[in-house]
C-alpha cells in the first residue's frame, strides 16, 4: 500500500497510452463505444491527477524510478507540486475538449479520440519527466499528436497552417537535440536533478559550452511557448485548428513555459555557481516584449480566434517576465495566473466556434471596415429587434466571463493573480525598473483585452449585423461552463491555491529539495 503513491506518478502517462491503443483497435463506426472508453479513461485520469496534486502537496517530490534503476543512471519521473498542478490542468482541458468534440467534431475525421489521448500522454509525460532526453521524446509525442489534431477536419486553410506549424516545430526539435547533446557532451548526464548538481561544478573552460547548450535548448522551448519573436506561427495555426484542438493547444504553450522554468531555474538557480542567474535578463526582456506584442495583437485583432491566440501570447509573456523577476512570491502569483489564463483562453477557443456558427463569415471584418470608414450602409438597414434566446444569453455571459478572466477584472481569478503579482513586485525596495515595466504592461494588456473584448462583444451580442441563430447542444456549452466553473472555484479557493503554487514556486527557485529527492 505504501508503494501506491509512487506508482501514481506513472499513471498519467500509461493510462492515456493504453486508452489510445484500445481506441485505435475499435472500429470508427462504433462511436458510442469509443466515446465511453475515452470518457472513462479521462475521468480516471482526472482522479489520478487530483490524487497526484494531493500527494505532491505533502512536501517532498514523488519520484518514480522506471525499472527500479537508481537515479542518475535510470530514467525517472518526478512529480512535485508544479508538475502535479500542470497535469491536472492538462487533464481538465482534455476532458473539456473531449466533451466538446463529442457534439460534432469527432465525426469530422478519423481517430480524433486516440490523438487526444496521445496528446495528453505527451503533455503529462513532459510535465512529469525528470530526464532531459525523455523531455525531448515526450515533446515529440505531444507534437506528433498535435499535428494530427491541427489537421483534424482538413480543408485548405488548416493544411496550409499545419504545414507551417509542423516545419517550425520540427526545426525547434532539432535545436532541442543540439542543446541536449551539447549539455550531455560537457556534463555526461541527462538527468535533470543530476545536471542541477553538475552544472555549477563545470570547469570554467567548458562553461561557455554549457551556457550555449542551455541557450539553444531555451530557444527550442520558447518557440513552443510562443515568445516574441518566435511566435509568428501561433495565431494562424491555432486559429485554423478546429475548436477542441485549439482549446487543447492552449496547454501546449504552457509545456514550453514549464520546460523553460524547470530547466533554466534548475541548471542556473541561486546555487548555480559562476552561471547563477544565467539568461534571467533574457527571460525578463523576452517576456516583456512578448507581453507587449500580445497586448497590441489583442488590441488590433479583428477576428475572435486571433484575439484568443494573442491573449495566449500575452499570458505567456506575463509568466516569463514575472518569473524572470527572480522572486518566489512573484513566480507563485505568475503560476496562478498561468492556470487561470489557460482556463480562460481554452474556454474562449471553444466559445468562438459556437459564436461564429451563429454569424455570417467575415462579419467581423465588415463591421470594422464599416465603422472605420463611416459607411452609410448601416443606417439604411432595418433595425433588427434582438430577441435574445437562452442559448445566446448563455454564450454572451460566457464570453463576458472569459473576457473578465483574461483581462484580470474581479471577481474572476485573473484579477486575484494580477493583484498578487503586482503586490509581490512592489514589495522589495528598491523596485527594479523591469518591475515597473511589467506593472505598466500588465495594466496595458488588461486594458487592451477589455477594449478588444468589449468592442467585439458589443458587435456580436448587442448590435449584430445579421440576425443570429445558434443551435448549441448541451454537450457543447457544458465544457465551457466547466472550464469557467473551475476558474470561479479557483477564485473562491484563491488562498489555498495560491499557497500551493507559492510552495511550488519556492521549489522552482530553490531546487535543493527537488535534487535531493531525485538523487536520494
Amino acid at each position, binding site marked *: 500500500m505504501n508503494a501506491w503513491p509512487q506508482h501514481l506518478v506513472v499513471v498519467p502517462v500509461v493510462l492515456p497510452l493504453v486508452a489510445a491503443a484500445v481506441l485505435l483497435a475499435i472500429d470508427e463506426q462504433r462511436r458510442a463505444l469509443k466515446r465511453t472508453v475515452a470518457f472513462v479513461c479521462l475521468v480516471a485520469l482526472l482522479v489520478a491527477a487530483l490524487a497526484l496534486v494531493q500527494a505532491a502537496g505533502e512536501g517532498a517530490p514523488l519520484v518514480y524510478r522506471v525499472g527500479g534503476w537508481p537515479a542518475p543512471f535510470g530514467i525517472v519521473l518526478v512529480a512535485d507540486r508544479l508538475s502535479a498542478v500542470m497535469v491536472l490542468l492538462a487533464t481538465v482541458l482534455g476532458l473539456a475538449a473531449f466533451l466538446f468534440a463529442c457534439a460534432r467534431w469527432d465525426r469530422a475525421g478519423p481517430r480524433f479520440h486516440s490523438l487526444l489521448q496521445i496528446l495528453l500522454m505527451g503533455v503529462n509525460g513532459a510535465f512529469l519527466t525528470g530526464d532531459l*532526453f525523455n523531455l*525531448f*521524446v515526450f515533446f*515529440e509525442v505531444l507534437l*506528433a499528436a498535435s*499535428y494530427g489534431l491541427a*489537421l483534424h477536419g*482538413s*480543408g*485548405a486553410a488548416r*493544411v*496550409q497552417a*499545419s*504545414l*507551417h506549424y*509542423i*516545419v517550425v516545430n*520540427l*526545426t525547434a*526539435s*532539432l535545436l532541442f*537535440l*543540439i542543446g*541536449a*547533446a*551539447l549539455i*550531455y*557532451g560537457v556534463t555526461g548526464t*541527462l538527468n535533470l536533478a543530476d545536471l542541477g548538481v553538475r552544472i555549477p561544478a563545470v570547469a570554467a573552460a567548458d562553461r561557455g559550452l554549457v551556457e550555449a547548450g542551455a541557450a539553444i535548448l531555451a530557444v527550442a522551448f520558447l518557440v513552443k511557448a510562443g515568445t516574441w519573436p518566435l511566435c509568428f506561427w501561433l495565431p494562424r495555426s491555432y486559429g485554423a485548428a478546429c475548436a477542441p484542438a485549439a482549446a487543447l493547444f492552449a496547454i501546449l504553450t504552457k509545456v514550453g513555459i514549464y520546460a523553460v522554468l524547470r530547466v533554466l531555474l534548475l541548471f542556473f538557480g541561486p546555487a548555480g555557481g559562476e552561471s547563477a542567474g544565467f539568461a534571467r535578463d533574457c527571460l525578463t526582456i523576452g517576456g516583456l516584449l512578448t507581453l507587449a506584442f500580445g497586448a497590441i495583437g489583442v488590441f488590433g485583432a479583428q477576428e475572435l480566434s486571433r484575439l484568443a491566440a494573442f491573449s495566449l501570447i500575452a499570458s505567456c509573456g506575463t509568466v516569463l517576465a514575472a518569473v524572470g523577476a527572480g522572486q518566489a512570491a512573484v513566480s507563485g502569483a505568475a503560476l496562478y495566473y498561468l492556470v487561470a489564463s489557460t482556463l480562460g483562453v481554452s474556454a474562449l477557443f471553444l466559445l468562438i466556434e459556437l459564436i461564429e456558427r451563429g454569424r455570417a463569415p467575415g462579419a467581423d471584418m465588415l463591421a470594422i471596415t464599416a465603422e472605420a470608414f463611416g459607411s452609410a450602409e448601416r443606417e439604411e438597414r432595418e433595425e433588427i429587434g434582438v430577441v435574445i434566446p437562452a442559448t445566446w444569453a448563455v454564450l454572451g455571459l460566457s464570453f463576458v466571463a472569459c473576457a473578465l478572466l483574461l483581462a484580470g477584472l474581479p471577481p474572476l481569478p485573473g484579477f486575484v493573480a494580477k493583484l498578487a503579482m503586482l503586490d509581490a513586485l512592489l514589495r522589495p525596495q528598491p523596485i527594479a525598473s523591469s518591475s515597473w515595466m511589467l506593472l505598466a504592461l500588465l495594466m496595458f494588456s488588461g486594458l487592451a483585452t477589455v477594449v478588444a473584448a468589449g468592442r467585439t462583444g458589443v458587435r456580436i451580442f448587442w448590435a449584430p449585423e445579421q440576425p443570429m441563430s445558434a443551435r448549441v447542444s448541451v454537450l457543447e456549452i457544458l465544457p465551457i461552463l466547466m472550464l469557467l466553473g473551475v476558474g470561479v472555484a479557483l477564485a473562491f479557493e484563491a488562498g489555498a491555491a495560491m499557497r500551493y503554487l507559492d510552495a511550488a514556486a519556492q521549489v522552482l527557485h530553490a531546487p535543493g529539495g527537488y535534487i535531493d529527492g531525485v538523487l536520494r
Partner: protein
Amino acid sequence: MYELVVALAIGVLAACGTWLLLRPRSFQVVMGLSLLSYAVNLFIFCMGGLRSHAAPIVPAGPPPDPSLLADPLPQALVLTAIVISFAMTALLLVVLLVARGLAGTDHVDGREDE
C-alpha cells in the same frame, strides 16, 4: 584530423540544410529538414567523443579502463532521434502532398509570390 573532417561534414550539412529550409518550395524545405537532422544526428553521436576501435560493451573479466570504451549513451540517443526525425519527415511529406493538392502549388505559403 579526424575531428576536423567530422566537424566540417556536420557544418556543411547544417549549412545546406538551413539554406534549403529557407527556400520557398515545400520539397526544398523537406530536404532541408532532412539534411539538418543528419547534421544533428552526427552531432549527437560525436558528443560521446570520437574514438575508433572502441566498443561500447564492457568485456568480461576485471573492470576495464573506461577511456578505452566508447560511450554507449549517445549511440542510444541518436537511434531514438533518427527514428523520430524519420517518422516526422514522412508525416511532413504527406501534409506537403495534401497541401500541394489543395492549393495547386508547391509554394510553402500556398500561393506564388507576386
